[in-house]
């Protein structure tokens, strides 16, 4: 068979075709595999950058949360690097680093959106091998009880201010976590005074992120009966300890009452009616309360012979006529429920509910956008 005859030509054609087909097939496969490799690499860097950006935001967020009002970080933060060798975040550029994060803290200026206007926003932008990702965290629309506009308590010391207050937004009650011995408490020495004093905090929702131990400083506390009224449709408590130090006359001098309690109230125009939840009183108003902490108690004290105060038993608060602890529970509370003097129908357990409802579950001060 010569090359010039038909069969020879066909053989060359077939061979060439085979070369072309194989080359095309191999080339396409190679290109596809390279594209897949690139995609994997890019995805990996993208996820690395995302978590690095979140790390930067978390670091600045932690700094923001630690600072008191007026001293919070603002503007451009120091660049943060992740050092591969030491496995730490640092501010100086290491020789071998995974990537870096630039974080900016700003106040949102959006007069068109009253819910967002004035909120603090943390924007963290990370770069890993040229791949950039941004993580944004924003404070949710709420006030802190210690913000100057409310001043319900001292952030530093936890002392409750004895004047009524009202807020239109949800309020977070949180004391400075750097200071020790600073639960929310009554600490307002007025010797000789022995009366009923009521202080009311009102908001649509009130979230206690710090314990409220009303008799924390009972030795120097206010004489008389102090009712801290928490007026909200939804209330989330941390640890709650009400205090009971009844008056006594062990010798000649009469020592006064120091009885500090928490009263739960439903704001006007809010709450649900008893018939909706099968309560005994169908017309009574109810709100919802969540006790997140494992302690909801009454601390009993007594006056000593020379005026000293001694602690008596810590009484765990239970739903009246049942053995159900309030701690870690979720309840409908009747308007004007006094925690230190619970009536039988004042708290109705919410069926199948966790101790904290979903809207606030797991949220810190910031939400990711």
């Amino acid at each position, binding site marked *: 068979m010569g090359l010039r005859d038909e069969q020879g030509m066909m053989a060359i054609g077939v*061979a060439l075709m085979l070369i072309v087909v194989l080359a095309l097939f191999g080339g396409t496969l190679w290109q596809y595999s390279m594209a897949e490799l690139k995609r994997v690499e890019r995805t990996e860097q993208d*996820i690395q950058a995302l978590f690095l950006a979140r790390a930067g935001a978390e670091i600045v967020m932690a700094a923001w949360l630690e600072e008191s009002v007026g001293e919070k970080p603002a503007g451009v933060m120091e660049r943060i690097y992740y050092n591969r060798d030491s496995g730490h975040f640092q501010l100086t550029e290491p020789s071998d680093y995974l990537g870096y994060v630039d974080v900016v803290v700003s106040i949102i200026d959006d007069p068109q959106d009253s819910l967002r206007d004035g909120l603090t926003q943390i924007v963290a932008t990370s770069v890993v091998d040229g791949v950039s990702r941004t993580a944004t965290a924003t404070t949710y629309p709420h006030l802190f009880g210690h913000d100057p506009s409310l001043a319900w308590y001292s952030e530093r010391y936890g002392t409750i201010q004895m004047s009524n207050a009202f807020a239109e937004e949800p309020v977070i009650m949180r004391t400075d976590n750097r200071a020790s011995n600073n639960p929310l408490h009554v600490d307002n020495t007025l010797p000789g005074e022995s009366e009923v004093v009521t202080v009311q905090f009102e908001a649509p929702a009130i979230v206690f992120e710090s314990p409220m131990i009303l008799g924390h400083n009972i030795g120097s506390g206010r004489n008389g009966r102090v009712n801290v009224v928490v007026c909200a449709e939804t209330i989330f408590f941390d640890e709650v300890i009400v205090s009971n130090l009844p008056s006594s006359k062990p010798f000649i001098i009469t020592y006064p009452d120091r009885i500090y309690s928490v009263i739960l109230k439903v704001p006007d125009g809010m709450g649900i009616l008893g018939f909706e939840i099968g309560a005994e009183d169908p017309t009574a108003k109810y709100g919802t309360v969540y006790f997140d902490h494992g302690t909801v108690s009454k601390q009993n004290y007594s006056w000593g012979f020379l005026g000293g105060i001694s602690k008596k038993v810590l009484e765990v608060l239970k739903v009246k006529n049942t053995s159900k602890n309030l701690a870690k529970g979720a309840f409908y509370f009747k308007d004007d429920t006094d925690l230190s003097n619970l009536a039988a129908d004042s708290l109705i357990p919410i069926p199948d509910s966790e101790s904290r409802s979903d809207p606030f579950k797991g949220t810190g001060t910031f939400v990711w956008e």
Partner: protein
Amino acid sequence: MKGVTDSESGFTLLEVVVAIAIITMLTVAFAPLIVSSVQRIQWAGTRMQELYTLRSEMEKSLASESYAKTSPEVSTHKQMPNLRVWSGGSNTGIEGLVVRVGDFVSFLPKGRGD
């Protein structure tokens, strides 16, 4: 023109052997390229799955400090040294865990996530 199928002449044994040899040579020449490409595609698929698993593990670790501390998937978690990210205020540094899952790294501040 006379069609191929009409031709009565066939291939000699030598022609067939040469043709098979050429086809084999061509296939052998392209085989490594094809095999390595297929292997790369398979590896990419496995790695992608691995990345999503690691990402999910990382999310879980960041959601819970206690999980981050106990999870066998977390290769390292260590206390952060003081880190002063801004010069104002009384901030003396940030404490928390550096959470590392596979090649992913993030940070969980102390007291958060539980």
